[in-house]
């Protein structure tokens, strides 16, 4: 069905992002692409849906890709779209329409299918995937899980024989992942071929026939399902893969983490030492769009603690963080800091939010300026100390946007620490991260807690939650 023939590809000359990729996928097979971030998983998916060479810049040096009998580079992407359907990582940027109904029809309209047939197919699709509740909705009011479900449905409506999924679960909660798994089961039962690149693999163990492990643009090994499941934890961790069971394997992770972080220095505390602070939230409620999202929420977090908050997509977790950060007002209830009630303005001064997309909170043209943005008079030694703690000092003249994802996130945290914020709030800090990066974030957060910060994390990532948080709250 799919054949990649000794292929070498580079985005920029002499970078060799993929080398000598040789892979055959049979019809009806479900194949997992796994490996650390930047190993070339996404690039391989792009070879198959035709974004390479038709859309993405770069050059195939040697080799070719076949879908059935046809060579991908001889077909236009819209011809490939007849056979290959793609679901991407970011649920926000896969839509052209504002309404779900129009979005479901989009692929078929492009193909010139008759009106009656489009309607029929949309009915079939929503029934088969059990997503009637997503019909006739405003897409911008959907949760990430719903959006991703819809994206999958839009591809299903076009009825391709090959599905290419590029990290579809990066922004999804547990239940949405289960739903995606069900949807994948039904297409597999229909005999469709599936290629999925993923970090989270626990939900795929029942589905996959083979797993392709990649490292630095090379296929290191192709495992059969049984071989892949037989990997023990140590092997898995060394491969940088996330857990296969949906729980973490803490003891080993601790060990591994120490090895991972041998080089990192301990974080120093930049807070006033004497304050052992406590954030006390009592009967907090807030509403949006006339209906209550969250009501009567109570919890306490003291400095040094890490509270993990879980809940479904669209349940008000981000709103809770915004409320704690003083960006919106509570409807009722109170938030106390060291026994004293704090209003939005005071909360704003106390707390800092590290957003899911840290690109939103980096504003300057260099790492150094980013650190002095809030206060021009801050002394150089402090900045230097913080930057070296976060392993960013050697990038002090770089543009923040030239940093890697993990570095950007550390810079965002560093900026918050420099502002002297006591309460640090994290919104999904590990979405789309591989094992190693997830562990690095976990380590940083624990160090921040040791330095006396109060830490609250909203996350769907069970593995991360288990090895990071001292207490948890389900909303």
């Amino acid at each position, binding site marked *: 069905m799919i054949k990649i023939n000794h292929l070498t590809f580079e985005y920029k000359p002499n970078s060799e992002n993929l080398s000598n990729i040789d892979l055959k996928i049979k019809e009806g097979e479900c194949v997992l692409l796994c490996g650390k971030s930047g190993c070339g998983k996404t690039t391989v998916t792009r070879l198959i849906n035709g974004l390479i060479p038709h859309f993405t810049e770069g050059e195939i040096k040697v080799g070719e890709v076949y879908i059935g009998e046809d060579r991908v580079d001889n077909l*236009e992407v819209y011809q490939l779209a007849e056979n290959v359907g793609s679901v991407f990582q970011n649920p926000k940027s896969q839509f*052209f329409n504002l309404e779900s109904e129009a979005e479901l029809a989009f692929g078929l309209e492009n193909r010139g299918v008759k009106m009656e047939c489009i309607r029929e197919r949309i009915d079939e699709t929503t029934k088969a995937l059990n997503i009637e509740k997503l019909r006739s909705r405003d897409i911008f009011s959907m949760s990430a899980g719903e959006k991703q479900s819809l994206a999958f449905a839009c591809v299903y409506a076009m009825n391709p024989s090959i599905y290419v999924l590029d990290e579809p679960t990066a922004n999804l909660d547990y239940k949405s992942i289960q739903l995606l798994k069900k949807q994948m089961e039904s297409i597999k039962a229909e005999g469709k071929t599936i290629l999925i690149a993923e970090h989270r693999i626990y939900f795929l163990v029942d589905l996959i026939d083979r797993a392709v492990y990649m490292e630095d643009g090379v296929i290191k090994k192709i495992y059969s399902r049984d071989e892949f499941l037989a990997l023990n934890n140590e092997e898995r961790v060394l491969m940088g893969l996330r857990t296969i069971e949906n729980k973490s394997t803490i003891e080993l992770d601790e060990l591994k983490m120490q090895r991972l972080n041998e080089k990192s220095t301990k974080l120093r505390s930049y807070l006033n030492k004497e304050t052992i602070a406590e954030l006390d939230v009592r009967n907090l409620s807030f509403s*949006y769009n006339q209906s209550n999202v969250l009501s009567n929420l109570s919890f306490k977090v003291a400095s040094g603690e890490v509270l993990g908050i879980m809940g479904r997509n669209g349940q008000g977790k981000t709103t809770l963080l915004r409320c704690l950060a003083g960006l919106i007002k509570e409807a009722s209830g109170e938030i106390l800091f060291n026994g004293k009630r704090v209003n939005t303005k005071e909360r704003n001064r106390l707390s800092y939010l590290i957003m899911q997309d840290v690109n939103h*909170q980096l504003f*300057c043209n260099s790492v150094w300026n980013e650190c002095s943005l*809030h206060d021009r008079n801050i002394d150089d030694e402090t900045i230097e100390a913080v930057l070296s703690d976060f392993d960013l000092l050697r990038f002090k003249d770089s543009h923040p946007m030239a940093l890697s994802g993990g570095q950007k996130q550390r810079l965002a945290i560093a900026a918050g620490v420099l502002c002297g914020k006591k309460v640090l709030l994290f919104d999904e800090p590990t979405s789309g991260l591989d094992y190693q990066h997830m562990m690095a974030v976990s380590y940083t957060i624990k160090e921040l807690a040791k330095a006396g910060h109060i830490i609250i994390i909203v996350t769907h990532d069970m593995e991360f939650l288990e090895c990071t948080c001292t207490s948890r709250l389900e909303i």
Partner: protein
Amino acid sequence: MGIRANIMLGRANFLENTRGEKAPADPRTMIILLFMVNIIAFSDKSIFIELITIALLFSLLVYSRCTRIGFILIGMFASIIFLQYYVFPNSLPVFATIFSMLSVYIRKIIPSLMVGSIIIKRIPMSYLILVFRKWRVPERIITILSVTIRYFPAIREESTHIKDAMKLRGIKGFAKIEAYTVPLMLSAINTAEELSAAAVTRGIENPIKKTSSFDIQFSIKDYVFIAAGILLVISTILV
């Protein structure tokens, strides 16, 4: 969630209206009306006909359940009439010359704003796209238009995030404008890239004639609206 709340407030109408049941008339009628009110407003012959047009459009707004906007626009219109007929003639000539031009312009665009706000608030994007296809507007232009419109709520979402981030870092005053542009541009570029990748893999470049998943038809209402429009246009020309 809060971010979504903001967006939803502005778009709550859309939600209940994604299938166009609440649209006051066929989208084609609304577009034709838009042209007609422009002719009436710019021919500028009789204030009497202008007043009738405004009154009719106001009732159309109320009928379309855009009462609030209706009142705002009619209030604007009334205050401009008041300025032009009572304030300017009795004020300093300098003052009058400066502001009379502006007031004339605003007065001219109010009828279009009235029709336009009904189109924006009450007619789903997919209906407009269908109309453009029926009128054989080039598919390229339709794509540009639909993606542009899709961008507005996305940018609103992004800018809420950025505003939050600035507030948390205590960025104030002039620095805000500078700080605003970098993340916004960056996210616009990323979104554009990802959006077009998704579009391409769903066959947007297919040269075949595109179809639609539903159809629209004129009803008596539409004929009434258009007839009223024609009557008004003819009378402005004849007066």
